[in-house]
């Protein structure tokens, strides 16, 4: 891929994250601040790869209990029933509610896993200094950032159900332990995506050139 123009890094310039002022890197001290808005200045997001790896690892660990443990505990006339995310999807599928099943599946199962896989893929590609389709990889990153927060839909559904269905002995829904872990997964992957600096993808290519 042919680079179109000189980057700020090549020119020794730092872009302020907040007010986007261009500052000469040479003027910067060990911990530079933006002369205009006072924000911390970094050439790239500091420690981006390590931080992203750490958060991705944490998300991978948390996603296991999030899917294995029950996310809701439904009590109907004394009969307790615990449902995991997947069993809920299967339940809706079996009862014929394909729409709800697909929404829950996409928001709660597909998206978190896809996000994690994309992040792992991006991290690995950077790690091995891959030059493969940097543009597409950047698209993937954008997708990750865009879609990440929608996974919280499941948590919203659970909280709303818990608040709504409180009919004492007749029917009651309680949040299961998986809800906490699932929320953790969503938040941590959002942070992970945030911490990943897509410019690194391009840095590799420019260095190669």
């Amino acid at each position: 891929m042919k680079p179109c123009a000189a980057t700020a890094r090549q020119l020794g310039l730092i872009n302020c994250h907040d007010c986007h002022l261009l500052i000469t890197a040479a003027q910067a001290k060990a911990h530079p601040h933006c002369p205009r808005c006072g924000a911390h200045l970094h050439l790239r997001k500091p420690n981006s790869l390590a931080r992203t790896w750490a958060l991705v690892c944490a998300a991978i660990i948390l996603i296991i209990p999030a899917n294995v443990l029950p996310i809701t505990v439904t009590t109907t006339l004394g009969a307790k029933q615990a449902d995991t995310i997947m069993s809920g999807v299967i339940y809706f599928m079996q009862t014929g509610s394909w729409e709800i099943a697909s929404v829950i599946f996409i928001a709660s199962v597909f998206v978190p896993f896809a996000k994690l896989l994309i992040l792992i893929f991006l991290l690995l590609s950077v790690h091995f200094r891959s030059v493969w389709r940097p543009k597409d990889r950047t698209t993937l990153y954008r997708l990750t950032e865009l879609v990440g927060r929608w996974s919280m839909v499941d948590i919203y559904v659970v909280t709303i159900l818990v608040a709504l269905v409180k009919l004492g002995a007749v029917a009651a829904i309680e949040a299961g332990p998986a809800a906490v872990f699932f929320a953790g997964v969503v938040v941590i992957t959002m942070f992970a995506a945030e911490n990943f600096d897509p410019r690194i993808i391009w840095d590799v290519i420019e260095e190669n050139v």
Partner: protein
Amino acid sequence: MTDNPQTEPQAAEAVIQSKRRFSIVWIVPLVALAIGGWLAFKAISEKGPTITITFSTADGLEAGKTKIKFKDVEIGQVETIALNEDASKVIVTAKMIKGSEPYLTNQTKFWVVRPRISGGSVSGLGTVFSGAYIGIDGSRAGSSAHAFIGLEVPPVVTIDQPGRHFILQADTLGSIDIGAPVYYRQIQVGQVVGYSLDKDGKAVDIQIFIEAPHHTRVTENTRFWNASGFDVSLNAQGLKVETQSMISILSGGIAFDVVKETGQGEEEAKENATFYLYADRSSTQEKKYTVRNYYALLFDESVRGLNIGAPVEIYGIKLGEVVDLKLEFDIETKKFTVPVIVAIEPERISAAHSVAQKEKALKMIEHDPDAFIKVLVEQQNLRAQLQSANLLTGQLMVNLVFVPDAPKASLSSRDGLRVVPTIPGSFERLQEGLSKIIANLEKVKFDQIGGDLQQVLKDASATLKQFGTLAKKLDTETAPKMQATIAELEKTLIELQRSIGKDSPLNYNARNTLEELSQALRSIRELADTLESRPQSIIFGKEKEVHE
């Protein structure tokens, strides 16, 4: 590329610090790992045994949902439900909680709790809404096991319930069902927990459970009887209806008590002790006699109303019962006979007099029944007769009587049985007497009597005619004469009236005479008084007034 002269000096001074130090962010995955690890550890440490239970049907069971409950506490959950190889059974795999191992032994019972309505009880109503669950009755006794066979019917008694099991032997099950109540003085103290045929299929073994503290009431002498439903018996004693409670009417029941004559035994019956289940209460009162001697009675009269089991009595006390009735035809005499086989229980007889004689008598009664019956028949004229036991129902019984004026008979033998001679029954004898009277009446020549009677009547009418002529004579001849006589008599009476009338001379004279007579009598009285006071006056005459 960096050929721009304006930016070069600025770019050249750029210092890029790339430090490769341990990021604090790694704490996040470490915390996550710690939580995950703790969860995993907890899951593994709390993981209980996995067991399989075989049921005949998975009705109401759901994989991943159905719970296993012990005393209504959840201790497990069904994981999978699958058919066995030949699809005859359902194998349920369940995960139990940690700590349930001690209760999973080969004596542990599993059953599906569903709504049930049986006999006198309704159970499992809660499962109508909540769905079925698997009940477990854990027992610490026995060896550890992981594969179980589920019961189709919930056990009536849980293993740890204090009490005692007993086995009752009965000829038939009757209307007894699992869960049927067991009563002691009409209080429910236990239940029927199961029944089965015995080894050779000739009797029924009924397992019952008596709850503590009532299980100590069952002693060696206790008698159990079937208290099912209405016991309506129509026998020689009349109509009898017996029942324990409404539930026992519906679902059968068993009652027990101690027989009075044997009294309360000291020994409590042990676990799984075996008892005989009597058919009804009255039969428990009867002793079980071990010795039975059989005799034949030959009747040549109707035995209608005599049933097998009818009592054989002597002096109104039961001595045995009828065990068989037959009808036989004798080709030689061309007659029917009814041989009735009776069983006599000699143990019912006790002996009188001193101990030595008693023993002698009992020895004779029990060990030499032939000699005993021979003495009775040949010397005491023992005879058997049919007697009406119940006039209402027409039931018959066999009565043994001593008939002093009966023709002598000797004890004979028939088909290996001693034959006790019979006499016609009391009713039969009454009939016989009546027929004799009728036969005698038949001998009377009623037509001759009629002829004679006619003759008599003829004579009587002739006599009456004579009477008629006599009466006529009286009327025509005697009556006028009588009238004349009466008129004369009247005249005479008038004259008589006149002659002795009020002013008649006869009347006057008679009055005078009477006056004089009374004066004379007064004088005589005076004389008598004088004589009484002064008897000397009769000789010396009246004394003078002066002396007085």
